[in-house]
């Protein structure tokens, strides 16, 4: 029975070109109303399926986007944490202190988990000492941290260094507290 209707519909479609299908549909509906009903039943599942697929696709995209945002936010948080944690040095020294070693180990671990990250290590000094010597000292401080990270397995190509000597203190005061803060390596992520 159904097949007969389908044949009829198809034959009607063949007889009546699509261009005027709307006009011609009315006649069969008025003549054979019971035959049109099943036709409508066939169509919705097909449409439903299409609609459903579309909805699914959008959700996946959104989900992916949200996940990406979340991953990026987490990465940004981690990067900010990475950048905000300086290591510090003793006066006129450039060896890695135990407290700095702990921080560098954490940084090395994170760098291993994020092999796409490239960084710049800035070496800084306190205002005591002479400008020229401090430029040289800042370079040694940045180099110490680089060598430490390299010894923990980080590719030296991922690490650039620069010395700012005593030119860029974080704390401009002239006291031991400020000097201790200023004798530092600062880490900047240059690409990820």
């Amino acid at each position, binding site marked *: 029975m159904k097949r007969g209707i389908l044949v009829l519909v198809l034959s009607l479609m063949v007889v009546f070109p699509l261009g005027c299908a709307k006009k011609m549909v009315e006649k069969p509906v008025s003549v054979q109303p019971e035959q049109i009903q099943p036709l409508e039943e066939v169509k919705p599942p097909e449409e439903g399926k299409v609609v459903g697929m579309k909805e699914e696709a959008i959700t996946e995209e959104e989900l992916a986007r949200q996940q990406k945002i979340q991953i990026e936010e987490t990465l940004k948080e981690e990067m900010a944490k990475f950048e905000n944690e300086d290591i510090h040095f003793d006066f006129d020294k450039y060896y890695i202190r135990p407290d700095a070693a702990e921080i560098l180990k954490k940084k090395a671990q994170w760098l291993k988990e994020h092999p796409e990250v490239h960084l710049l290590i800035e070496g800084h000094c306190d205002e005591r*000492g*002479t*400008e*020229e*010597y401090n*430029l*040289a000292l800042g370079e040694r401080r940045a180099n110490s941290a680089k060598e430490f990270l390299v010894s923990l397995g980080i590719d030296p190509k991922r690490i650039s260094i620069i010395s700012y000597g005593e030119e860029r203190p974080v704390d401009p005061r002239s006291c031991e507290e400020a000097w201790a803060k200023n004798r530092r390596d600062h880490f900047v992520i240059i690409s990820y």
Partner: protein
Amino acid sequence: MKKIIFFVILIIWPRIGHSLVYIDINTPGQQKIPIAISPFVIKGDKQIALEAQQIFQKDLEYTGFFNILSPEIFLENIPTLEIDFKKWQLIGAYLVVKGKLEITPQVINLEMRLYDASQGIMLVGKRYQGKKNALRFMVHKFADAMMEALTGEPSIFQTKIAFVYKSNNIKEIFVTDFDGHNPHPLTRFKTICLSPKWHPNEKKLLFTSYKKGKPEIYLLDLIKGEAKRLIYHSNLNITPAWSPDGNRIAVTLAQGKKQGIYLTNKHGKIIKCLVESEGINVSPTWSPDGKKLAFVSDRGGTPQIYTLNLVSNKIRRISFSGSYNTSPAWSPKGDFIAYAGLKDGHFQIFVVSMDSGEIRQLTFGEANHESPSWSPDGHFLAYSQNEKIYILRLTDGSSFPILSLPGGQLQPSWSPRLK
């Protein structure tokens, strides 16, 4: 402890008959030569004439060699180029300066004469002509000719001092006359510029700048008025120093794990590594014969001054007292190295004798004295004292500031005699 006077500078008097007259200005109380500056003969603007006399008097005061007599005691006080030696001998003037200025709107004519009143002879006589803005230069030129006649070499009246001018986070290279006149910027990089170093005989400067991010060496040509990047081989390109012939440059670079002092040609191309280690090697300064370098290294555990013999490659430590000695500057005659050393919490300027190894402290007090730079005659050191430029006169150990600018002034570099 009082400031130590130890630089023996002999003023060679002109030869009269068979005898040379020496005045040992090292002897306190006797060293200053009584000199009279007779009122100038003036035709034209009196204000300009007064200015010329003031410039000249300031030049004489700067040297510390003279006792400038008060005009109140002059017996010959009418402006004239004629001289009655008797009248100057009577008031104790050994030397007399006479001058004549003709000022027209277009041009200034200056004539100046130096007389030896005791011998009754003219030692120097010069005529200069120039525009109004050349007045200062003409006076300085005569002062140098006069010093050359008295000591055998010109003084520093035709020299300049480059320095770092600090304002907020910006440091630019500035320059001023030796006496602090006419300070003005040479760079407008709006970043960190450091360590200006004059070419040994040309109007050129090397300096370090972060203009392109990393500290790199720039060459500033004062005649062309342009700066170009010259040395940029590594993450660290700092503390340049011209060789005495101006053909080579010693500079600190960081290559691989090491930091060292490299030799480049005058275009910045590396010739070879002179000294290198995993420690600090910085601030080279050449001996005047070009055979040695002094530099700073921490190879002994603390920053100290070392010399490197460029022929034998032997390294010798020359600073032994104190835990922090930096900024060496080799004297123009090669006899001393000046440096900044930490003592009782402050940086002071010291000199070490290259003959005896004896070390002398030149500055005192609760201030930081840094970055010594020799005048070309070796009679003065420019340095920074709590971020102001001071001149230390080695003949009597006295010091004085030369600039009254806001902001900080650092790292003076004294020019050669400029033509």
